[in-house]
């Protein structure tokens, strides 16, 4: 049994490393980071709204742009291009978006996010954004392949650049959001202490940091591969 799993692992290791090259990985991260920044910029300057004043609307704008970008890009790197067309990958990414949002929302509520009618739109939009950081790209790439999901999200043992690219920013977003929740109970009386403003800031920061780290990992991985090939 151990041998078999090892073999499987080797296969999996080889598979994704073929599918994405180092410059491509950088490009993907660059685009998703830039889109995030641009959408914030657009919200702030074109519509003159921000997270503090209109958190729901701003969040909606950001998640729509970000999830579209992420699903469209990551669907190109689906692991099973033979069985699954590009369109199908996009569709499963879109389907996974609300499911992931549900998981994220439940997680947030379990950790203490406020429950109530007035918080509902904020929570929904926030969880959709979180879903586009975490679940949507993974769904586009892996589909329903349970092994991958568990390895990446339950065990955190990614291998290969593509898995790094999905795993590390997603964990970064979640951990960033977790840290972002810390100032909420303090009595500073700042508007950004409201749910979900500081959690969103934390999650976005964590996502960006995660992308930088994953770029580093991809680079290191590429160098190791090259050394091995030499």
């Amino acid at each position, binding site marked *: 049994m151990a041998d078999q799993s090892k073999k499987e692992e080797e296969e999996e290791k080889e598979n994704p490393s073929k599918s994405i090259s180092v410059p491509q990985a950088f490009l993907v991260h660059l685009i998703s980071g830039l889109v995030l920044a641009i959408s914030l910029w657009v919200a702030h300057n074109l519509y003159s709204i921000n997270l503090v004043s209109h958190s729901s609307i701003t969040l909606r704008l950001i998640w729509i742009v970000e999830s579209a970008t992420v699903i469209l890009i990551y669907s190109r790197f689906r692991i099973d291009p033979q069985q699954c067309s590009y369109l199908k990958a996009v569709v499963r990414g879109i389907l996974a978006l609300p499911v992931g949002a549900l998981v994220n929302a439940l997680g947030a509520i379990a950790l203490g996010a406020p429950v109530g009618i007035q918080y509902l739109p904020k929570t929904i939009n926030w969880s959709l954004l979180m879903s586009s950081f975490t679940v949507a790209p993974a769904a586009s790439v892996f589909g329903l392949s349970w092994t991958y999901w*568990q390895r990446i999200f339950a065990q955190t043992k990614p291998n290969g650049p593509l898995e790094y690219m999905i795993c590390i920013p997603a964990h970064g977003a979640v951990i960033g959001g977790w840290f972002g929740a810390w100032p909420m109970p303090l009595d500073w009386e700042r508007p950004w202490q409201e749910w979900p403003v500081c959690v969103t800031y934390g999650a976005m920061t964590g996502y960006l940091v995660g992308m930088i780290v994953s770029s580093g990992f991809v680079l290191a991985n590429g160098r190791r591969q090259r050394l091995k090939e030499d």
Partner: protein
Amino acid sequence: MKLLIIVTVMISAVILQIIGLSLFVFGFFPVKPALSGVSGPESFYSDDGGDSDSVANHTQTSLPPHLLKSLYQELSGIHPSFDRLILMVIDGLPAEFVLGKDGLPPREDFREAMPYTQALLSNGMAIGYHAKAAPPTVTMPRLKAMVSGAIGGFLDVAFNFNTQAMLDDNLLGQFFRIGWKMVMLGDETWLKLFPGLFTRHDGVSSFYVKDTVQVDQNVSRHLESELNRDDWNLLILHYLGLDHVGHIGGRNSILMTPKLKEMDEVVKMIHLSTIQTRDNDQGKTLLVVVSDHGMTENGNHGGSSYEETDSLALFVGLKSDHSDYAASPCNSIYQVDIAPTLALLFDVPIPKNNVGVVISEAFDLLTDDKQLRVLELNSWQLLRLIQAQLPGLSCRNLPSHNGFTDGLASTIVECSGSMEKMLCCLYMNAVNLHSSWKSKSLSRSKSRDDYSCTVAAYHQFLKTASEWLSRRVTDKPVGLLAFGIVTMAVSSLTLLGLMICMSTEDQPGENQRLCNSITGMHRWSVNEIFLLGVMLILVMSMASSSMVEEEQYIWHFVLSTSYVLFLRKAVQPLASGSAKSLFKLMKGQTERHDIRISSIILLLISGRILRGWHQGGVNWTYLPDISKWLEQAGVNHVRSIQLASGLLVISLSMCALYLFGSRRKITRLFGLCFLICGLLVLWHLYHNNAFVSTSYDAAIQTQIIYAILGIATIGTFVALPWFIPLWFPGTCSELNVKSTSVTFDGQCIFSLVEFRDSSYLIGLAYIICWCLLQLLLQQPINSMPILLLLVQIFSSMLYFSCSGLQHIEVEVALLYYMGMTGHFALGNSNTLATIDVAGAFIGLSSHSMFLSGILMFIITYASPMLFLLSMLMYISVKCTSYLANHQDVDLGHLAKMILGFPCLVPVGLNSILLTSYTIVLVLMRNHLFVWSVFSPKYLYVCAATVCVYAGVFIVAATEIYTCWVLALRRTKQISIR
């Protein structure tokens, strides 16, 4: 490591900790022997005289106010010239603004802002002082110091947490007793301190710090009408605006000058009106302008820097208008000196616990003998206080100097030696000089020289005594504190070291090593690191006052995060068993994973409901929560929820019993017994509305229930190990069925099975009893959280029953954290205000401080104790895992792992929290919130320590007793065979 060594080290560490803690507490919160009661007529007599008792006896309480007033006037013999007092408190005004600093005049703009006050000062119509305030420089303690002359300790705040009202002897109480009418305008702190004393009042809140205008207008708007009336004797004005200006913009705020102008206008208005009333022969009025504390450059206060403690005391109208110019140099006094001065100026006894010295300039207009009388009265009062602090001190025991004859040389004695002797000697010097002066004045041979000598002697005594007394209150014995902290640190480091040693040593069992190599040798899993990190987070968060106030958020957040991490861990192993390898796995194992996942989801849900039950904390209490919502819905809903949760508690515990196996007689008997107890409690809850039932019958009923619960629990504890069936190899196969999932082959492990069973049953008995007790004692709204806590215990036991033996210390730590989180979920917080005092009298027919204290402790520490008691059940669950995994029992190993950790880990974690919080408290001793936030929290930490000790003691005692009885019975049985 040997078991014996571990136990010895642990016990000695605990003893060390107790010693360190008590040393620290007695050092940090000095329990000064304050005199209770109030000063009466006896304070005008010397203690030496025999006649004081007789006078005190028949006049103490019986006299009506006006008679008491005339008695005081007659006794004191001072006969002052004032009838009315206006006490104007300007919150946060540094004396520097009015009087300048180091002999220099105040700043140009400030001087120009207060022209009238400055004119009063320069004309000699007012005397101003730098009144040094004692830390903490916060309003309420400062007001107390001004009216009582005493510097309060923290514990007297803590001991009457029920009420903020001032119970000690104080000026306002004395004035009230002689029938004064009092009016208060301004900060509502006065109303909290002296409820019911004021005939008229208009309180303003100091809560809206941004408001600097309205808050003072609300005071001044009544001023004119009050000044025109003559039905009051004391008018208190408390202006908060200047403090608010400081908080917003600091000392140099642009609002400061206008605010000073406004205050100057008020002084002018009052002074002009007092001149007018005096001219109309309505009696002379004294205006005293004081500030409670100063402020730093940034406008903060609370600490002990010069800027903060430099408060003002300004007496307007003491001297006649024609007195000599520039007679009043800017002197420095203590804030507590205000109290005795005002007391003697208005002929009331000096408050009992006063440590202040009269301001002699205030009595300059009196004749010599009256001035000496003032000093004498003050000296008697201070001497009484000193005698209370140093019992056995009697100045008459000193070698008497033959001072009653004549000549100064014989009476003055060089004072030296110990403090006690010194104080006594100084007192005797003054007394002797005074009596010789008196005898001389009778024979009309008094001289100015004698008089000034006597005054100097009195002042020397008063100054020394006052300084000694106030140092006793504020000074912390550094050596004691340091020793206490070091002792606690050593003990907690020992416990920590012991924990680390045990957890590293016990891992390399052969099975575990195998497991570790399979799972990739990462012994430090995320969960462990996180649970260690939790300690770090808690310790760090304790240094911030807002985090201490809102501690429940941290616990809930951290605990639910660790649930999520455990959920992640529970999902992990399924990875290998995905759809295709499902067949390979045993069916039982997947079931186990299902149990684990579902129990964790149950934990998450119940944890979230518990979090939402009470908002808790200090700053966000107004936000909606489930308990408020239910209370709005009505009493009937609350009651039905209470009954339903009571019913559910009973049925859940019966379920737990059934899971254990209900076939044997002893189990059935046990179940029946506790079923009856539960139904009794339910019946009682149904028939008695918790707070309506103050009747005698209800108290008796409750006492009967206490007794039955106690008998059932103690009976289970004592008897169960004697009657649980012993298990012999022959009967092995029959008994295999009886427990949930023990399937092991061949070898019967003897006493472990019985041990497991009995500790399960005893643990269950403890839990049921504790829950039923809480249902009885807690507020009805809290019965649902009790049920949820029980659900948490059972579901975590379910999880732990499937989790193997790897991380026992982590699981015990998790249980401890759950207990602490539940503490806050029951509505507790780190302020003393949330303690449920009403519940502490349920079932008590007579008032007993001790019993209600115990009940209060039981109510407050319901949840930590519940989870500590559940350790017994945890031990039994782990025994089951042990039986499943190990063929033979290495008793030493087992004891270390299964019995050691549930006792060691809570004590260790608690000691870390205690020690670090002690250090935080010492670092924060000058913080603004040291008395309002950090010290109450420290009391909670100490009480939690007591709770952990009690819980661990119960667990350990039960285990040891059970082992002993089982071993005894086994040897007997074997010898019979």
